[in-house]
């Protein structure tokens, strides 16, 4: 009888505790619940770069992809771009592709920006925010590291230092 009571009480308390714990957990992760979670497969997308070449994420299987979302008006993006460009040169041969997705700006602004900072990696414009919506991005810049299997290894928002950019490249080197 006593044993049973303890048993029943434990079960009820456990169920209640689990419900509370889940609610708290969900509440505190809701602000940064990326639609694309680390450890999951990165959603596929196709965008055309400034040279008219199509890039489909799934075509880069076997390579690490450094996926960066940015805008010309965003200061931290502007600061980190040259770093990314430098590291792109270092790691291009080691099987890493950099894809820089601008959110909904004009061709002129993006082209001029790329020229000004002599950026060499493929830059594409997400004209109707489809990719941005798919990845659920809010603050720019946002960087996703995708490994050779197409799985998201890391998500970072905010400006990168040159060292961080290098670390990131190392993390997805195939």
């Amino acid at each position, binding site marked *: 009888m*006593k044993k049973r*009571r*303890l048993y029943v*009480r*434990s079960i*009820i*308390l456990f169920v*209640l505790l689990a*419900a*509370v714990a*889940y*609610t*708290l957990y*969900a*509440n*505190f992760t*809701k602000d940064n*619940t990326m639609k694309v979670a680390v450890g999951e497969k990165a*959603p*596929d*997308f*196709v*965008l055309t770069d400034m040279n008219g070449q199509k890039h*489909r994420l799934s075509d880069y299987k076997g390579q690490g992809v450094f996926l960066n979302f940015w*805008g*010309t*008006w965003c200061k931290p993006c502007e600061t980190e771009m040259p770093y990314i460009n430098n590291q792109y040169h270092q790691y291009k041969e080691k099987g890493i592709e950099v894809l820089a997705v601008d*959110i*909904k*700006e*004009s*061709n*002129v*602004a993006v*082209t*001029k920006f790329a020229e000004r900072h002599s950026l060499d990696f493929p830059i*594409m414009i*997400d*004209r*109707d*925010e*489809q*990719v941005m*919506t*798919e990845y659920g991005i809010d603050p720019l810049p946002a960087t996703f590291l995708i490994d050779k299997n197409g799985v998201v290894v890391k998500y970072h928002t905010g400006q990168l230092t040159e060292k961080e950019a290098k670390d990131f490249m190392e993390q997805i080197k195939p």
Partner: protein
Amino acid sequence: MKDVKCECGHVNPHGTVLCEACGKVLDEQEKDKNLLDMRYEGSARRSITYNKTIIDKIWNFFSSVKVGVWLIIVTLIASAIGTILPQEMYIPPVMPAEQYYQDQYGWFGKLYYQLGFHNLFSSWWYLVLIASIGVSLVICSLDRVIPLYKALKAQRVTRHEGFLKRQRVFGITKNAQTAATLPLLKQKLEAKRYHVREENGDLLAEKNRFSRWGPYINHIGLIIFLIGAMLRFIPGMYVDKVLWVREGETKVVPETNGKYYITNNKFILQIYDKNKDDQVFGEAIERAGNIPKNYQSNVTLYKAEGNTVAGEKPKLKKLKDFGIRVNEPLTFEGFSLYQVDYKLNELNKMSFALTDKATGKSFGDLTVNLNNPDTKYNLGKGYSVELLSYFPDFEFGKDGEPTTKSRIPNNPAFVFKMRTPDKPKGETSFVAIKQTIEPFGNNKYKLKFRGIATNNVSGLTVRKDNTLWAIILGGIIFMIGVIQGMYWNHRRIWIQNKSGEVWVAAHTNKNWYGIKREIEAVLADTGLQMPYDQLQRQQNEIEKEEA
């Protein structure tokens, strides 16, 4: 920790105050009282039974009504404090919240922010409080409803003398037996819809026992309600997103996995017109000026066909045209799009004329699309303009270089190269609103501002709520519980033979006046005396002594 065996033979759980079967007072303290505390039928609240393991201790903590009431009071006070200053999500994004509160409300604002009240309703301790109320509700209810149910089920007709004489309504008729009047009493009680049980010439009449379950049904409703609130945190159950669409723009509806697209055809803002609308509005229009009559977005909803990858131009199938107005959302597959905001006259296009500064002669017009401008504009006859740089929201940066604050064309600026037959190398001109800079000296030509075209932008809310059923169900069950407990009373009347006398006692959980009137009607013409209300009698005596 032993069960208690009553002299009537019934075995009661430890902690029982009144024997479940015969009502004999088992608790010594209770014996000194003239009236019994009938709450929970004197059954053993389960929490007072064992207090050994940690599980029991947690259980007993939440089982206390006192704790439950304190949880509610603390939550109420916290919620009240949370409404003194606006929550973080409602403050304008002009500066970081930390500065904003101090800036606007002084030291109190700073303290408010530091204590975390700026984000109270999703803070962990507030959620823990709400959750504790839920836990307290479940455990308090379980701990009371089960013993109460058992006690009411175990009750026998014949009750112990001590139980009867400590009831609030109690009376003795001397030198009487129930034998002769039994059928009459039974018939009268049954006419009053009592359920009558008889044992050895003793009667127990009972009705509306289900009213005792009202509070617990009510708690079940509350718990379902809380579960409904919890469901919001499960992905896909609840969506509340903002979607801004310019006129002429097609956008994917967020949270639909790229399945639905929407085109904004036109945003309409209508205001009341004194001359056209009903005269009764006239006075109000005069007083308040422009009064909006209608906010409407005319949209087209599309469904993407086949599996397109994000970024690819999807094949869209038109589903319907719809005018979204306030409170008239566009609904599809559980989603609703509401009209909530708008922005009028966003710059969309700007046109210029290539002009000779000296003569004022024009060599053709060009129109620049501000959201995605072309780079080359050929005006014919050897005149052309090239767009070298574009800053949609222009400002001078810290280093004096022109930059843009955002991608919205609030304050567009351009660097143009004007090529003409007499200046084949071209002249460079920096053009912003109301200013022209010629970086390389005096130009022969300029781009004269001709006009603008504007666009409206609709602000929509994408809403999906799959939790409403739980909230509504919880609310309905809550009300059923309230009604059950409020409009019916659990009434019991005992008519029993004790040593040559007839004892009448009665108990109800509310409306004592009602039960006394029923007893009066039942006892009429039976020779039995009307019992008196012991509580009232005590009060009368106290009043007499005071007088």
